């Protein structure tokens, strides 16, 4: 068993991995709340949301392995890639409970990502890739519950006590510089849109705003102005938190290569 795998990263493989990795890393962060959420109901809810995301990423990683064509599997893609071969959004790799982040950061991030996934799944349902369209058609139904749950919490905290509003504002300030990446196009987006594989990132901005803005109005929050900072997780350049996340997530497969349940 080799230490890390080398991949043939065609534009199609990169496009699918961006979505698969965003779901996988988002699920990993969500699962960190298991046993630590403020109330039992929320402990169960966040674990369930993480489970949905993990299931979505498993289907997408399995499909990416087929597209890649080099004999990889969902497991080898999840556990044997190096950091620069992960293409998730930088936002989802941010700590859940360190560096000042708290429960508000998790709910806000969950809303931002669900509002991004909802139009993405919808666009992918019409993909020329029928397997990708089938995975998206299924995931779209699950994302509705994520949107409802996270949206409820963002409103409750934003329009709650002075302390909860202050914390939600702080969470927004931490997340916002990484939100532009959700809608930044590059050559992978262009290839996907031109070939009918799926929507380009910039096409998700209007439907995202249509979901988030009414919830923000209810939450007494305002979307901040655009920042000059740009994150590039979707291109394989990650924040300092990604290496630690992978070290924990990949530890067992690295320590016991090929180990199975």
């Amino acid at each position, binding site marked *: 068993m080799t230490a890390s795998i080398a991949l043939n990263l065609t534009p199609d493989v990169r496009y699918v991995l961006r979505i698969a990795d965003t779901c996988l890393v988002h699920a990993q962060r969500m699962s960190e709340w298991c046993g630590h959420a403020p109330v039992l*109901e929320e402990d*169960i*809810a966040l674990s*369930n*949301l993480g*489970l*949905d*995301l*993990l*299931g*979505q990423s*498993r*289907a997408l990683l399995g499909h990416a392995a087929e597209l890649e064509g080099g004999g990889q599997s969902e497991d080898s893609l999840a556990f044997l890639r190096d950091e620069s071969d992960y293409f998730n959004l930088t936002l989802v790799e941010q700590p859940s409970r360190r560096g000042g982040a708290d429960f508000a950061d998790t709910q806000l991030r969950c809303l931002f990502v669900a509002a991004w996934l909802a139009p993405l799944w919808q666009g992918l349902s019409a993909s020329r890739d*029928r*397997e990708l*369209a*089938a*995975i998206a*058609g*299924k*995931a779209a*139904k*699950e994302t*509705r*519950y994520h949107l*409802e*749950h996270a949206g*409820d919490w963002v409103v409750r905290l934003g329009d709650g006590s002075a302390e909860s509003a202050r914390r939600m504002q702080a969470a927004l300030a931490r997340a916002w510089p990484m939100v532009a990446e959700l809608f930044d196009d590059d050559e992978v987006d262009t290839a996907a849109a031109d070939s009918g594989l799926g929507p380009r990132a910039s096409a998700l901005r209007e439907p995202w705003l249509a979901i988030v803005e009414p919830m923000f109005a209810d939450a007494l929050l305002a979307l901040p102005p655009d920042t000059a900072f740009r994150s590039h997780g979707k291109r394989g350049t990650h924040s300092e938190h990604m290496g630690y996340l992978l070290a924990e997530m990949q530890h067992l497969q690295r320590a016991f290569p090929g180990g199975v349940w």
Partner: protein
Amino acid sequence: MSAAVTADSSVDRAWRVLGSVLDPEVPALSVVDLGLVRGVSVAGDGGLDIVLTPTYSGCPATEAIEADIRSALAAAGLGPVRITQRLSPPWTTDWLGADARRKLADYGIAPPCGTSVVHVLARNVACPHCSSARTERLAAFGSTACKALYRCLDCREPFEYFKPI
């Protein structure tokens, strides 16, 4: 006996066996009641092709259900069995028939209200114990991804609600 008659009877037997394979998380319903079995056919080699549609993407029972189906069909002397997972069209609670909904309510789980496209966020759920419509949601997520937790304001009993999806 013609080949066609043999093929039909093994498919019929397989459906009967599958009707006795219970979902491990919701043992009031069989995999047929839940609409998980989308097709049973006899392959050229005489084996059975079973087509399943998974419920939630991350449902941890998916592998257990496959194993239960294999062992039940093997015990009935049917097989070899090939199982394929079909994602499209995606599974929906709209596939739960009237019989399945009654079994859920008898088991103490409120069946999904209305159709999944229109009523995904419906809150008016009838209590499966006393039928009161005066209920409230305690948590959007229950013991499994497919259920939410409710409480009846009349009989005061908590209950689970099978969410429409």
